[in-house]
């Protein structure tokens, strides 16, 4: 898939472009728009994360998918840096949603075991407790709720999420 050529400058990695990864993304729900991208850049210009990050560029990431850099993309944390604010989707003139495409990438990455730690641990919390902030529900907050006249028993159900965990995430996040 790639060729390493040694030059006098050192190791120069060259990648051979392939459309296979783009086809794979296209077949994944959410990734259907990948072939519509014309690399105009309006997504990156609109992206709040891009303006404050020196690494994250949605246009660049999409081109990497188009030229088939499967390993690099799936093992990178870049697809997980999208905030899903969807301004790119709103602005894209060709009807592409980079946010949705990166969700599709995340799903494939998850199946192959590449998940950032924070996502893994937070998801685990949601599945075991049924909700995310079980650890944060302190006595003080319970008192606040009482003062406000709100029910202190939050009543979250976790049986359902246990069943989901068994079905979809048994043996470490996999399908």
């Amino acid at each position: 898939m790639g060729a390493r050529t040694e030059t006098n400058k050192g190791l120069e990695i060259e990648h051979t472009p392939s459309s296979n990864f783009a086809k794979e993304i296209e077949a994944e729900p959410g990734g259907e728009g990948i072939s519509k991208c014309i690399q105009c850049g309006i997504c990156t210009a609109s992206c709040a994360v891009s303006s404050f990050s020196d690494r994250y560029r949605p246009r660049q990431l999409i081109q990497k998918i188009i030229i088939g850099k499967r390993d690099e993309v799936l093992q990178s944390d870049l697809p997980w840096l999208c905030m899903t604010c969807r301004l790119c989707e709103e602005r894209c003139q060709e009807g592409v949603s980079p946010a949705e495409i990166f969700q599709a990438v995340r799903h494939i990455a998850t199946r192959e075991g590449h998940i950032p730690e924070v996502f893994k641990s937070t998801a685990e919390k949601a599945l075991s407790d049924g909700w995310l902030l079980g650890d944060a529900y302190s006595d003080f907050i319970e008192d606040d709720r009482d003062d406000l006249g709100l029910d202190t028993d939050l009543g979250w159900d976790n049986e359902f999420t246990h069943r989901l965990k068994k079905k979809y995430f048994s043996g470490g996040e996999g399908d």
Partner: protein
Amino acid sequence: MTEAETGTDTAAEAPRIGVFVCMCGHNIAGTVDVEAVAKMAETLPYVAFSTTTMFMCADSGQQLIKDSIKEHSLNRVVVASCSPRMHEPTFRRVVEEADVNRYLFDQVNLREHVSWCHMRQPEEATEKAKDLVRMSVARAALLESLPVKSVEVEPTALIVGGGVTGMRAALDIGDRGFNAILVEREKKLGGQIAKLASVYPTGEQGNTLADQLIKRVKTHDKIEVMTESTVTDLDGYIGNFDVTVTTNDADKTHRVGTIIVATGIQPFKPHGYYSYGDHPDIITLAELEEMRLKGDVLRPSNGKPPKTIAYIGCVASRESGVKGHEHCSRVCCTAIAKSAGELKDNADEIIILYEDLRTYGKGHEEIQREARTKHVIYSKFPPEKKPRPEIVDGELVLHWHDVFSDDNLILKPDLLVLASAMVPPEGSEDVSKVFSLTRSPDGFFNPEHVKLAPLTTHTAGVMIAGGAQAAKGAAESITDASGAAAKAVGLMARGEVEIEATVSRVIPELCSSCHTCISACPYNAIAMDESQDPPVALVTEAKCHGCGTCAAACPSSAIMMLHSTDDQILAMVEAYLCAPMEPDGGAA
């Protein structure tokens, strides 16, 4: 040639000049004290009447001129107003309607040359205005009436080039009842489009489109087709051209009224670019189309179908500083997209390496989208670091950098297709000489004005259309063709065309037969009159543009410029330098 004497013969009468100063609303009057200028004009020799008005070109202003001519028996008119480029024809018509010859009229530019460029200096501007009016009055006193001439237009058009452009023009002309002679140097009609397997946006074979035109052209009773022919000589002038067409060494002369040059474009063979010529699998887009026309697309090296194809755009186009290759060839981006989309069905990977993408026309964006939908990969390379082909053990290896993914890429294409530049065809130099056409740096023929007159040239009666004018596709060429044909038909339908009388004239007694004027004239308008002994120079007035080059070049001062004689010009100089003037130098 017919002559029509218009206006009274004023050679014997003393000049009675009317000076009309226009305020042009605020445009002139806002800076120049027009009243003062008119008042000053009253004092000038031979001025019988001087006035101002708000808008000279308006109906009221025009009527004022006509009425004043009658009331004050004026026989020369000076209008001080906007640029003659704006309203000289208007005012010439006005004085003619009042029976004053149009060449007894002079226009002074107080707007573009005075008020608009000296807006913040009203006093100096007014002085300059007075100077200019004084100069014009001095000239007006010496102006002579000139006959208004017109020439007949032969109702036949010559069309050079039998591609879609030439054929469309011929059909448009023939359909309107005029004769057309279509000259094509190849054996067959059809030009470039007949060499294409698939024409965008519809994907039809080029021949299918060309044949529709060829069939009609060949059976049209007004069109004469001459193949294997070239135009080798051109003489005459608008409405009356004598063209020599050479067919297989046999010459034939035709009299035509108008000419359309539609010599088209040709694809460049990009030797020196991307190792073209070093490997059989590196071909141009044109060569790929020819291959498709003949049959299947196969690798020239081994005859097998290519599974991986790479295209490179902008080859030998848009090269800053490389003469003849600085232009964008316009058709390639869409042609590549079409080609790639069509071949993708039988290939595993197709990559398009581009500098920029210009799929601008009707239906073109859709062609690009279709290619992308089929997973043709588009990869942008930086212009300062173009793709580098390498031949390793007979195998083609392509290296480049993708700008948007910021990656170094490598590919071993089975076929490398170069979309090379569309340039003027072989022999364009000769064509430009025969028809006196100038060429822009990219090699295509110059129109009279790139925006306002893109189909006419500086040679009156000669039009250009299609690829001859600039690199473009078939649809745009055909639009040009119909435009040029309309212009040709316009001339031929009127049957005659007026020619300017402000031309040069040789004084035969002074001519020393030195031929200097002949080499100087840019329009081939002056030649030796062999009927005289010794031969003297003679101007073909219909071809003359009145540029004055011959008069300036003549060492014997044997050439005068009508309407800009030495006396008239020198009078202006004197009027400027030696104010105030007295009639007859003060003797009276």
